[in-house]
């Protein structure tokens, strides 16, 4: 079916009803028609479409929206799993070993389900299916190491707790399954229940990364992680990933370690102190130098905020003052190369196999 945009004068909208999408026609002075079976809309067609749409909406209002269907059942065309797998790898621009990729998408409970079925049918229980348990562990380890190494390079003064918290956020179920769904991983998963739970999608995604690592090595896999995980940090304050319960304690410790004077909070400005909407600006000073200031609705809140700003300034993770993440460009490329070198040098067991 060719996809044609409709710009007809009478504003007929193409109804989302299966294959009728392709039937609408351009009615501009220079129409461009590509393999469309019908030249014009018949007089009865529009009222019929509207009637069908009305029936569908009535059904939906009465019985709720239709249950979600797996991608393989979305259209009447036959679903070829093998070609979909191949297309998936090519779409990502990677060459992955077919068997490894197949294993990456197979959940252990699917394998168990298949064995059960065979037992019931009294068939031979010897099943050649591999599951993605091991691959997902390999994948998550590599992803964690790459992300942590990247963040350490970009924010050298950021403590390990913060880096781990950011890594946890990026590899969390919500973020990973969001990335995975948009890459089309969710369509190829082999799992007994549909719709797939988010942690299954996450596990499969990590297994895909593991499969890529086994096929191509840490260089290409590192680029993959860099291109899909790290942009999730854009526009996000990475300090928010880290839940700090005692910022003042941490600030005192950090300044002590750096050999600087302990922090002294001072009230810089205040307005409307006797009103309900009072505003106080507190500044934190170390050796009479201002290291951070922030407003707040009470003195305590302003002090807390100012301490957090001071910590951000010391760690170099203040979004207002630090440059954007160097994901691409010459800096990004150099950064990637040094991370891969570090990963290779630090942990040689990561590299399991060279590409086929």
């Amino acid at each position, binding site marked *: 079916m060719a996809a044609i945009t409709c710009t007809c004068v009478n504003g007929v909208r193409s109804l989302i009803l299966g294959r009728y999408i392709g039937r609408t026609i351009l009615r501009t002075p220079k129409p461009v028609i590509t393999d469309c079976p019908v030249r014009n809309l018949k007089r009865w067609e529009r009222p019929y479409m509207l009637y069908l749409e009305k029936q569908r909406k009535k059904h939906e209002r009465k019985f709720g929206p239709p249950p979600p269907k797996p991608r393989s059942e979305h259209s009447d065309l036959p679903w070829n799993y093998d070609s979909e797998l191949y297309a998936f790898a090519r779409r990502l621009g990677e060459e992955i070993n077919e068997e490894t990729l197949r294993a990456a998408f197979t959940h252990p409970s699917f394998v168990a389900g298949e064995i059960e079925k065979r037992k019931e049918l009294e068939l031979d229980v010897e099943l050649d299916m591999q599951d993605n348990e091991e691959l997902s562990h390999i994948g998550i380890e590599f992803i964690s190491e790459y992300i942590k190494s990247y963040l350490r390079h970009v924010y050298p003064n950021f403590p390990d707790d913060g880096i781990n918290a950011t890594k946890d956020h990026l590899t969390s179920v919500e973020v990973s399954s969001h990335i995975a769904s948009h890459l089309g991983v969710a369509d190829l998963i082999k799992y007994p229940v549909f719709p797939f739970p988010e942690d299954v999608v996450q596990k499969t995604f990590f297994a895909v990364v593991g499969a890529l690592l086994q096929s191509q090595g840490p260089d290409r896999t590192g680029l993959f992680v860099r291109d899909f995980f790290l942009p999730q940090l854009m526009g996000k*304050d990475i300090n928010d990933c880290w839940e700090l319960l005692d910022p003042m304690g941490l600030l005192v410790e950090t300044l002590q370690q750096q050999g600087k004077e302990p922090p002294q909070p001072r009230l810089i*400005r*205040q*307005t*409307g*102190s*006797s*009103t309900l*909407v009072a*505003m106080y*600006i507190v500044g934190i000073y170390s050796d009479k130098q201002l290291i951070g200031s*922030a*407003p*707040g*609705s009470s003195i305590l*809140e*302003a002090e807390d*905020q*100012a301490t*957090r*700003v001071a910590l*951000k300034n010391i760690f170099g993770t*203040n*979004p*207002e003052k630090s440059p954007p993440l160097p994901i691409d460009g010459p800096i990004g490329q150099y950064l990637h190369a040094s991370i891969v070198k570090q990963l290779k040098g630090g942990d040689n067991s990561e590299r399991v196999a060279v590409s086929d």
Partner: protein
Amino acid sequence: MASRAAQQWGTFARVWYLLDANQQPPGRIAAMVSPILQGKHKPIYHPLSDVGDHVVIINTRKIAFSGEKWDRKIYYHHTGYPRGFSATKAKDVHLIDPTKIVHKAIYGMLPKTLTRRTMMQRLHLIPGQTIPEDIKANIVEQIVAPREIPKRLDQYTQEELENFPKLWHPVEDPDLR
């Protein structure tokens, strides 16, 4: 950069200004105060946003009209009832209520919308020097008064008078006249 909530609180906080009206012309005070009550000095200004600040004006009793306005300027008022028209000179109005002239001047310079009354509620006029404690606690900034107060002759020190540059020196010998 503080959290979004703290930043927002700081952006939209209302500031309390102080202005000393001693020896100041009420019209020029009004011209300075009116944009502050509206919030026009802020980049987040919008007429419907209610972002105006508070202004506390002290010493309104000491305002100084230029020229002969105390005698010539008439404040007209009609109560709406028959025989309700009155015309009062500025000096009489000032005697009755020492804040009324400044109040009327500012009220006339604000936009004639429904938000005007709200802005006037944020204007605090004090005839004398003593500010109530709760208002005093809120004040954060001072507005520079528009008129530079000239010094009286008796306010100059003896050295200043002696060192003042003279055009000519009076002759000592009376015979030369």
